[in-house]
């Protein structure tokens, strides 16, 4: 059915455009009148916050790339050149450097919200899976970005992490050579990481678009985990949630700015202020804080291959969460036992993070093993079994009834 779109925009210029490319109609439908459950709490801000972060990271990153040199002999000094000589270079770089951490904070809370309120359950499985793809892409991007300043931790972090692939029998060493573009982390590695670090955020935008497109097919979940039963249960996205998201964005920017202006290096490692030196290994090689839980899982297993598999498995297991959880109730608010066990899982994730920051000896080995055990048990045992055993609280009749206390109005 070719032909012009029937646009009802009063402005003739906009109408002319919209008739040929109904992008304004689409925005109006998806972000203007889009029916959104009326009972979101502030946890529903975090998707928007992640979007804002992605945009700010790309904008600052483009300006950094104008002054950065992906060359092992120049990279470290070019970052200092940005910090010292480029106009407001320190600001752009500190926004970008701390933005990585902000991105993970926001995304982890966004994922927690999905887990707590059961946003991964039918019909939102594909939406969830696309989210896990976004997480993986983010991790790859962040890892390669951390290598670019070419400090000691950049270099040795890259060496340790890429070497993990060598654990796979037969093909392992070949994968590592392929990643490095040679036989150690060196110029080809830095150059390709720079290229990929610039590419992947745009791939991320593509997957984020699919994530949002899938969201707009099935609609948003909400804190009650019950579907809207009619127009009285929803509000148009604009102005209600544009306004509410704006509040969250402002608060988020305060937190981000606090790091940028008053503690720009507090999340970093002093070793990265030393230029990469392949002949001198730092005493402790520690990844950035957002990777510490996975690092702890890796080190909790005495066998390298098994450790590597468990580390990758800790993310991959998220892909099948929609099918592991057998409970028909979405929101943990109505699951009295599961609710606490999920928070225990959050605790296990945090404990693993603390373990990852400490040397793998003494109590940290024991704690990281307990943490890793619970991390997996939660998904592989508790989710399938508890879903069948647990007796959920009774669900409210409708969103409006739960919010206002009034029974569902019949039309």
């Amino acid at each position: 059915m070719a032909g012009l779109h029937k646009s009802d925009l009063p402005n003739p210029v906009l109408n002319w455009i919209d008739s040929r490319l109904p992008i304004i109609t689409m925005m109006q439908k998806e972000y203007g009148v889009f029916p959104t459950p009326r009972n979101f709490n502030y946890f529903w801000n975090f998707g928007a916050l992640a979007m804002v972060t992605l945009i700010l990271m790309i904008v600052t990153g483009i300006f950094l790339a104008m002054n950065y040199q992906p060359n092992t002999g120049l990279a470290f000094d070019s970052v200092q050149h940005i910090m010292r000589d480029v106009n407001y270079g320190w600001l752009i770089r500190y926004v970008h450097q701390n933005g990585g951490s902000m991105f993970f904070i926001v995304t982890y809370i966004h994922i927690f919200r999905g887990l707590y309120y059961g946003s991964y359950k039918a019909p939102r499985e594909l939406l969830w899976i696309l989210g896990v793809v976004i997480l993986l892409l983010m991790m790859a991007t962040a890892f390669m970005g951390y290598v670019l300043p070419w400090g000691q931790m950049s270099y040795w972090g890259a060496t340790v992490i890429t070497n993990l692939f060598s654990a796979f029998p037969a093909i392992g060493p070949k994968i590592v050579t392929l990643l490095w573009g040679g036989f150690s982390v060196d110029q080809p590695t830095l150059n390709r990481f720079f290229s990929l670090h610039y590419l992947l955020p745009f791939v991320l935008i593509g997957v984020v678009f699919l994530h949002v497109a899938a969201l707009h097919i099935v609609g948003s979940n909400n804190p009650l985990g019950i579907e809207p039963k009619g127009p009285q249960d929803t509000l148009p996205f604009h102005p209600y949630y544009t306004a509410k998201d704006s509040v969250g964005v402002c608060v988020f920017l305060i937190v981000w700015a606090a790091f940028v202006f008053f503690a720009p290096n507090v999340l970093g490692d002093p070793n990265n202020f030393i230029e990469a030196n392949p002949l001198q290994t730092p005493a402790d090689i520690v990844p950035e804080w957002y990777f510490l839980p996975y690092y702890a899982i890796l080190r909790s297993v005495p066998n390298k291959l098994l450790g590597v598999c468990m580390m990758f498995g800790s993310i991959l297991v998220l892909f099948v969460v929609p099918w592991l959880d057998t409970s028909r109730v979405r929101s943990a608010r109505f699951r009295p036992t599961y609710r606490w066990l999920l928070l225990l899982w959050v605790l296990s994730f945090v404990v693993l993070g603390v373990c990852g920051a400490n040397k793998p000896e003494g109590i940290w080995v024991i704690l990281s093993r307990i943490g890793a055990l619970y991390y997996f048990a939660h998904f592989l045992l508790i989710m399938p079994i508890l879903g069948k055993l647990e007796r959920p609280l009774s669900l409210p009749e409708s969103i409006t009834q739960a919010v206002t206390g009034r029974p569902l109005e019949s039309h």
Partner: protein
Amino acid sequence: MRTPRCLFAPVLAAALAVTGLLALSHGISGAAAQEAPKPPSENWSFDGLFGIPDLAAAQRGFQVYSEVCSTCHAMHQMHYRDLTGLGFTDDQVKAIAATFTVPQGLDDQGQPKEGPGTPANQFRSPFPNEKAARAAMNGALPPDLSLIINARPDGPNYVYGILTGYADAPAGFAMQDGMNYNRFFAGHQIAMPQPLTDGRVTYIDGTPTTVDQMARDVVTFLYWTANPETAERKAMGVRVILFLILLTGVTYAVKRKIWASVH
């Protein structure tokens, strides 16, 4: 029907558990860190939310660096032009730069030549390269000091501890040849001989040149070289955050008004 709405209690419980764990973490790492003694915790002009480097101290520290540290330690991130950030005028910077002899490219015969420094020049390096430095220094490499404050945990106190931590080795402590005992260096054996002694330099402003005073001044200078944007950054931060708080207030008011009919 009463539904358990509030996430507050469980989150609080989790937070308490994490705090306990972190405390435990600190206790253990504190006990394990025998080899690197914790340096004294000093007060610095650049400490805290609004602290910025004391420029008078940093200027004195630049003098200490130039007359003492620069014999062995390079600062290749620094240019003489950067010294305007310490409060020197352009003419003063020109004069300071001219007192140093630095490489000035090639002469007409293609041979490397040297000449008086200009503001555009990097700080003079004591050695042409790492090999030359190691050859002259008994195999040890004096680290570049441009970023040293950021490159060590608790940098200001660490550098201050090293500079003031020289002492006679305790009886029975086996020292290697050419090494010096230092209370705050990991392993207590440092290749650098004690750089600062009372009266080592003469300050123009008459400040007494005790080891403690010179160490403080040079740490302030090194903090500035590692973080030259500090004053600008913190001043901008105050304005940005005040603006964002205001914006949050306005945005929240708008949100309340929009939602008033729904609640």
